[in-house]
């Protein structure tokens, strides 16, 4: 009984954590973009620093009219945002927040995450196809091509980590890093590939071709408004957070404390490392312009995949020599 209650409680904590963080990330993104562009960003709603801006935005979106355009495929149109939200939440099931704080410690955690990640594409395609809008459809097609291409290097980059840890479970990977060192030291190439492919996976600039405001208006969510649009938006930031948490777990030792700084609780370390990647992703977003579609494909197939394969080969050679 107590075990059931505890797991339900964990689930609730994780859910609240993600939703609050997604809102925080939206605010943070606006702030970071403003700082990089020598602006101040939101300042008026909530002092100091306009902290309540996201809350105000969400409230506004909640009260907006629920518009379903007349000639959309209604089932798909309604389903799209729901599917978008699902993988963003599901990924968190296997991510350890602390030594004993993981909702479901699957022994195939990494594989699970790779599988869940590809559902995100379904949501974009569902929404894009269901909207009955050419921009949405173009965006959905692009997104499909992009995510297929970048799933491959992403998973190949994860293989190096799995080879070193000898396990697919995220908890085991963290334990293995605790015994040796953070895998970013052993896997710099793998980390680089993971970072690039990861940013492409969550559809962020410079790889946000499916959103491309300047050509596709808003991409697959042109027809969406109000709460449905908010769900797509929150899912996007939920995905970013999940990616950052994954990067922190796989390459920066997750919740383990570096330099023997054990007095800071593991949960805080996990958050710090996660937000480090969030900042890096935002930094990259506000630095680089969007790539062209052919450049996008070239980068994946002609650069990331060979490099990821090279990384696997090097890791294999290293393991054979040193063990």
């Amino acid at each position, binding site marked *: 009984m107590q075990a059931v209650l505890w797991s339900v409680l964990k689930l609730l904590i994780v859910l609240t954590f993600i939703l609050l963080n997604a809102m925080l990330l939206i605010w943070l993104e606006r702030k970071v973009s403003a700082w990089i562009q020598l602006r101040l960003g939101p300042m008026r709603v909530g002092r100091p620093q306009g902290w309540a801006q996201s809350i105000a935005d969400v409230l506004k979106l909640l009260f907006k009219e629920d518009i379903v355009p007349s000639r959309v495929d209604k089932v798909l149109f309604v389903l799209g945002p729901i599917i978008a939200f699902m993988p963003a939440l599901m990924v968190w099931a296997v991510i350890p927040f602390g030594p004993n704080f993981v909702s479901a410690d699957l022994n195939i955690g990494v594989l699970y995450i790779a599988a869940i990640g590809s559902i995100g594409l379904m949501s974009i395609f569902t929404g894009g196809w269901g909207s009955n809008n050419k921009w949405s459809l173009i965006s959905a097609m692009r997104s499909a091509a992009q995510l297929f291409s970048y799933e491959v290097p992403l998973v190949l980059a994860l293989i190096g980590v799995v080879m070193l840890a000898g396990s697919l479970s995220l908890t085991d990977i963290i334990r293995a890093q605790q015994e040796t060192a953070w895998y970013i030291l052993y896997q710099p190439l793998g980390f680089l590939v993971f970072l690039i492919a990861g940013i492409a996976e969550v559809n962020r600039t410079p790889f946000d071709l499916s959103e491309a405001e300047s050509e596709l208006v808003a991409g697959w969510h042109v027809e969406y408004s109000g709460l449905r649009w908010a769900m797509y938006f929150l899912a996007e930031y939920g995905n970013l957070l999940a990616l950052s948490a994954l990067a922190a777990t796989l390459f920066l030792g997750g919740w383990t404390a570096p330099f023997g700084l054990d007095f800071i609780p593991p949960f805080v370390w996990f958050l710090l490392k996660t937000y480090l990647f969030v900042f890096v992703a935002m930094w990259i977003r506000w*630095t680089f312009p969007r790539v062209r579609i052919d450049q996008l494909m070239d980068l994946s197939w002609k650069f990331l995949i060979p490099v990821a394969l090279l990384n696997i080969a090097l890791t294999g050679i290293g393991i054979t020599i040193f063990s």
Partner: protein
Amino acid sequence: MSYVRNVANVVATLLVGLRVTLREWFSRSITLQYPEQRWELPRGYRGHPVLLSDEEGKTKCTACGLCVRACPTDVITVKGAKGEDGKRVATEWVLDMSRCIQCNLCVEACKFDALAMSDRYELACYRREDLLYDMDTLLELGRGDGVAAITVGDKL
């Protein structure tokens, strides 16, 4: 080999870009929080003309009408009468701010130093009639700070 060099070049240029944004990230914002923070106006700033008063707080205007003549958009209305000491003094001085082009010609025309340009720039109001500034208003504004910091141009 050229492939490797190309990749190295690309990575280097990307890092240059990242360095630029990182530098801007930690430099001061140039945004001014307008209603709370204000600009420091340049010394020659010309708002609209206001009336200056003498030591006793009365207008220096004698209703000679030179400003009315100088005004290119014909927005000044002046009426005068003989004061107690026998000198002419303005009784009515109205500026129609809806048409004033803030050209400074009235100030240059005035022989009695009764006019100056103020540095007032927040002129928005709800009704058109509110843009007709009467003598009391203009005198009051003329007693404020930031008036007639310098007079632009020579007196005619």
